């Protein structure tokens, strides 16, 4: 596999970057790390595991699951109880191993639910997982002993038992623990795609009848894939419990399952690293945009739907699409067309954001007593001017983009045709 090998430098660079990143936000005056950055980076780690393990279902096995947070959450809840037991001295295990226990809890539950859900595929599978997710979310609010009801269950991660003598009192130690486990989980999931199971998962996704003819039971493949993805989601949940020292209903409920789907899909389900991109991007957006805007869900929803319609292979798929052009050294020819598309695209986005924000401030913002401020100027949401400008930007940008997109398409298709004929010539020469 020259593809996997050729990309390994990219992975090493990403890991080195992740190792160094906390120190980029180190405050030398107070000799402290930025708490916000650390918690966001830690969050990214868990979300990468969640998105990658979700992609074991959606991307690799073609299974659209809606209960993935169930296993994440159960890993979290179980870890809280394990940590409490370890703190009391009942569980003689070091901190570094505890995420694995969380993973096994996820695996156990995934085996039970996977047995039921993987009887079906496609739409019926999605419905059953939706039911399972709702069942667990309702149960979490109902049974206080294990789930702690609305308040959740809390713990103390300083169990004073570590392989390396660490106390995990500071965020940066927890970050490196998360980084280590994210790395382990990512590598494990990557090697799983190379095993016969990973290959058969792809086969049952593409054509389950043919996989059946070859003597494999697609149901068993689905079941194994589902259980293993539960294992990894459980590890992610364990890291969640360790970071926040409290696990509530949110770690298990539907919105997080939806988030897993969004991250995996927007990042790209066809490439192994795609969900990583998605997890980083969505976490960044979540930490950044949700602070500024009430309507962040609309943006994510629109982004998601546009991806479904225009770029079903996600961001990673879009990037991979440029590979043949890059190899031919013709990427430079795309710069001007890109700029020409980008300008109306930006206009369209700005107009859309403007309209959404204006509407949102008219209702929700007014109820919360907030006012829309742009560049230090207050904007009157009842005046006609901002609405008009946004609408013109939206529709004008849209119309302009249509024209430019057609042009871009022509350039792109031309390049592709060139590459194909060049390939053809090369083959003929070789023959």
């Amino acid at each position, binding site marked *: 596999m020259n593809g996997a090998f050729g990309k390994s430098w990219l992975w090493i660079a990403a890991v080195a970057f992740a190792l160094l990143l906390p120190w980029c936000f180190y405050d030398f005056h107070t000799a402290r790390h930025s708490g916000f950055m650390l918690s966001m980076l830690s969050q990214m780690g868990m979300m990468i595991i969640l998105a990658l393990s979700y992609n074991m279902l959606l991307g690799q096995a073609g299974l659209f699951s809606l209960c993935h947070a169930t296993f994440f959450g159960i890993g979290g809840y179980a870890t809280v109880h394990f940590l409490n037991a370890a703190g009391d001295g009942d569980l003689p295990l070091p901190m570094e191993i505890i995420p694995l226990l969380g993973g096994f809890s996820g695996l156990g539950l995934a085996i039970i639910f996977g047995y039921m859900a993987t009887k079906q595929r496609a*739409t019926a599978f999605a*419905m059953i997982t939706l*039911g399972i997710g709702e069942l667990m979310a*309702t149960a979490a609010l109902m049974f206080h002993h294990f789930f702690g009801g609305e308040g959740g269950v809390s713990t103390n991660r300083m169990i004073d038992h570590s392989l390396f003598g660490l106390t995990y009192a500071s965020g940066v130690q927890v970050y490196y623990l998360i980084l280590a486990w994210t790395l382990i989980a990512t590598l494990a999931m990557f090697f799983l795609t190379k095993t016969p199971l990973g290959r058969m998962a792809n086969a049952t996704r593409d054509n389950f009848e043919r996989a059946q003819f070859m003597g494999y039971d697609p149901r068993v493949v689905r079941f194994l894939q589902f259980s293993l993805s539960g294992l990894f989601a459980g590890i992610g949940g364990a890291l969640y419990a360790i970071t926040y020292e409290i696990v509530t209903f949110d770690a298990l409920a539907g919105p997080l399952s939806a988030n897993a*789907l969004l991250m995996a899909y927007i990042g790209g389900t066809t490439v192994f690293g795609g969900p990583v991109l998605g997890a980083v991007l969505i976490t960044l957006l979540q930490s950044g945009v949700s602070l500024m805007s009430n309507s962040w869900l*609309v943006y994510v929803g629109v982004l998601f739907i546009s991806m*479904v319609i225009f770029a079903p292979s996600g961001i990673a798929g879009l990037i991979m699409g440029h590979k043949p052009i890059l190899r031919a050294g013709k990427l430079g020819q795309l710069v001007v067309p890109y700029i020409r598309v980008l300008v109306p695209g930006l206009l369209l986005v700005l107009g859309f954001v403007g309209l959404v924000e204006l509407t949102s401030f008219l*209702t929700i913002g007014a109820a919360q007593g907030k006012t829309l401020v742009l560049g230090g100027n207050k904007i009157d949401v009842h005046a006609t001017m901002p609405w008009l400008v946004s609408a013109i930007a939206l529709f004008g940008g849209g119309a302009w983009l249509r024209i430019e997109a057609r042009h871009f398409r022509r350039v792109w298709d031309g390049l592709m045709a060139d590459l194909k004929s060049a390939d053809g010539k090369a083959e003929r020469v070789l023959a």
Partner: protein
Amino acid sequence: MEIVLISLLNGLVYGMLLFMLASGLTLIFSMMGVLNFAHASIYMIGAYLAFTVSQVLGFFPALIIAPILCGLLGAAIEIYGLRRVHHNGHIAELLFTFGLVFIIQRGVQMTWGMLPMAYRVPAILDFPLFTVYGANFPAYRGFMLLISAGMLLATWLLLKKTRIGLIIQAALTHPQMASSLGHNVPMVFTIVFAGGCLLAGLAGVIGGNYQTTEPGMAEAMGPIVFVVVVFGGLGSLAGCFIASIVMGVIQTFAVVIDYSFIDFLKPLGISVTADNLLTEILTVPVARIGALLPFAMMILILLFRPRGLLGTRDT
């Protein structure tokens, strides 16, 4: 006895409301193989539109206008959205409707605000229809039953007795043949999708003031409707009807039952005093786990009849 009768009536009302939503979902599914995740969101839009229209024109015009608007919205979704992702397979279609849920959810909050709307039962229907054992049965619930039964009859007649119904049935089972015979199958798809959304909108109009018109109503209704569709058997209208009524009745009954598992064990001489997870499961009253029952039932039926109650095919 009185509790049984009243719960039965209320369960019937709720079940019929569920059926109105679930039937549209089932029709769309059996036709296009698409499970419309945004179905409950359309229901919510129906309720909100009905509220707005009823403020201007009154309840009865809203009863007609709001569902039609929902139907038009459905047609637009089918033509501009679903049709474009159709060639990418069923998963892409599912994902598309799933994305719509977010947008509609937030869009409704942006347009009407986060607070519940004061969408009330019209004054003309706000009286007790009859009294059973001292409890009033509101006339509005009777009206709901009437509307949903009328809708059921109308849909049945449309599908079984009219030419368009015949074409829909043909396109449902043999899309290629129907297309070869000169029928516009994509347009039939649009009509079915719009029709399903119209039914959801109608359910929203009469359900909005029966429950509360608030931004969380789609989230509250959605999973139950999907459970009904799966429980009844994907793509089976009759199964869907039975499942809706069963779910409606079970949910209303669960609220009034104060027994727990331990009450069944007591005659056997078993009692629990310890305080752990197991005893909690054993002693929790049915009334509290009412919300959990539909999902537990769905999982049970899938274990024993993977195709659902009356389902005839796998997906």
